[in-house]
């Protein structure tokens, strides 16, 4: 055991073996889309957004507190909402916005609100790759190859 330890000490991994990820690859900033829809439509929305280019999303359930909500017993109005958090690469935002807009304007029942916030940092290359669904994006590559 002791010998093995010595050996590993003799051959430390050089820092120069790793080249920083951003030197060889393009890094595109991410945006967090927070979408609020009526209860039950979260999964459909995730499908729609992932088709448009969103990469990572999850649903949480919440309550709406809009202007015209009467108490549930009186009106039967359901104020339950689903909140979809999803990550979108910055170059895909317009497509996602378009998809959301067409979805929201199809009918009153499909209405919702979506807003996006820019992410300022991501910890780790592997996390970035996981979140963006990108393995390697060489800087020399043209944009069409995405």
């Amino acid at each position, binding site marked *: 055991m002791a010998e093995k330890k010595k050996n590993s000490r003799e051959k430390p991994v050089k820092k120069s073996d790793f080249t920083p990820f951003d030197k060889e690859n393009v890094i595109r900033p991410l*945006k967090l*889309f*927070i979408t*609020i829809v009526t209860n039950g439509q979260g999964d459909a929305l995730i499908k729609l957004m992932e088709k448009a280019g969103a990469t990572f999303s999850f649903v*949480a*359930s*919440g*309550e*709406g*507190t*809009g*202007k*015209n909500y009467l108490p549930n017993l009186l009106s039967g109005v359901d104020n339950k*909402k689903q*909140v979809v958090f999803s990550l979108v690469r910055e170059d895909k*935002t*317009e497509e996602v*916005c378009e998809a*959301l*807009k067409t979805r*929201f*304007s199809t009918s*009153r029942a*499909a*209405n*919702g*609100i*979506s*807003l*996006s*916030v*820019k992410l300022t940092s991501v910890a780790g290359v592997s996390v970035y790759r996981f979140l963006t669904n990108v393995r390697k994006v060489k800087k020399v590559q043209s944009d069409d190859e995405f």
Partner: protein
Amino acid sequence: MTNSKRELICCIINNGYSDLVMEAAKKKGAQGGTILHGRGAGAAEAEKFFGIKVSPEKEVVLICVESEIKDEVLSSIYEEAGLDTKGQGIIFTLPVEDFVTGKKAWKY
């Protein structure tokens, strides 16, 4: 659609105080908000030493407002449910980049 001048107000408050927050926000012109339920993960030892009861059940309120009225809404929420009150709210805002909704007539 893009570059809308709005801000997202996030409030993390003790369970049951979301009505106070929404009332305070609506007073200053906010349209509506969304409430999520969660659990705080504060240090358990803080309860012992400082004598403040940190209850773990939390509510998160998300309110999207125009940036002109943001400061007013923020201060009114802070007065009603800030850290000094029983709501023990942590309130912060995030800049919204894109904003998408359906037709105006469908706004509730």
